[in-house]
């Protein structure tokens, strides 16, 4: 099963669930905002999405991941809007019978997310200015 959410505000993590019978491995990835982005100090990132398409692509990607790997479920929340340093922008949980499938699926899911899901980062600098991430300052 696949569950996808795009959230404007802090991510409530998926709650603990002790009722699963066949999932020996639960793997969780939290992507967090670091205080430096390509060497520049930042105070926050602001995530922008292509509304509609971002969620559709993320849902399709989760389904593709379930097809490609022997996993049971994948849940994912991606935050948009301003995310302060230290906070979670991406929360993924994968359940599988054995851990190796879950690890491989997680790795692939994130690589693909970074290729195809239309979400972008703006860096918010110390002086409050806002630039597309990975652009140089003098752009």
């Amino acid at each position, binding site marked *: 099963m696949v569950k996808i959410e795009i959230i404007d505000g802090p991510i409530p993590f998926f709650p603990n669930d002790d009722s699963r019978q066949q999932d020996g491995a639960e793997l969780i990835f939290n992507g967090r905002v670091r205080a430096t982005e390509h060497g520049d100090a930042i105070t926050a990132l602001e995530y922008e999405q292509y509304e509609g*398409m*971002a969620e559709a692509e993320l849902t399709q990607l989760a389904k593709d991941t379930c097809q490609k790997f022997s996993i049971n479920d994948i849940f994912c929340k991606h935050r948009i809007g301003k995310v302060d340093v230290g906070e979670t922008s991406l929360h993924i949980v994968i359940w599988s019978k054995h851990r190796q499938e879950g690890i491989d699926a997680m790795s692939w899911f994130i690589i693909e997310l*970074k290729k195809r899901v239309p979400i*972008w980062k703006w860096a918010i600098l110390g002086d409050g200015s806002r630039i597309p991430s990975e652009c140089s300052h003098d752009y």
Partner: protein
Amino acid sequence: MKITIKCFSQVKYALGIDEFVLELEAGTMTSELEQNIRSKADGKLDGISLRIAVNQKYIPNDIELNDGDEVAFIPPVQGG
């Protein structure tokens, strides 16, 4: 025909706008629209690869646009 252009990230930064509508001749191709957009950006999109989404789906090839289409020129994505 009317085409809606959605702008994100570096495209938005270069053009200074979120979204706008262009009146185009019937039969315009996505590649022609891309040239149009790149020229509006006045060099600020040079060297930036753009994928094209029509009606919220990536298109693998150059296609003909239809009246009412929503087009986005997608700079390298950065989710995560």
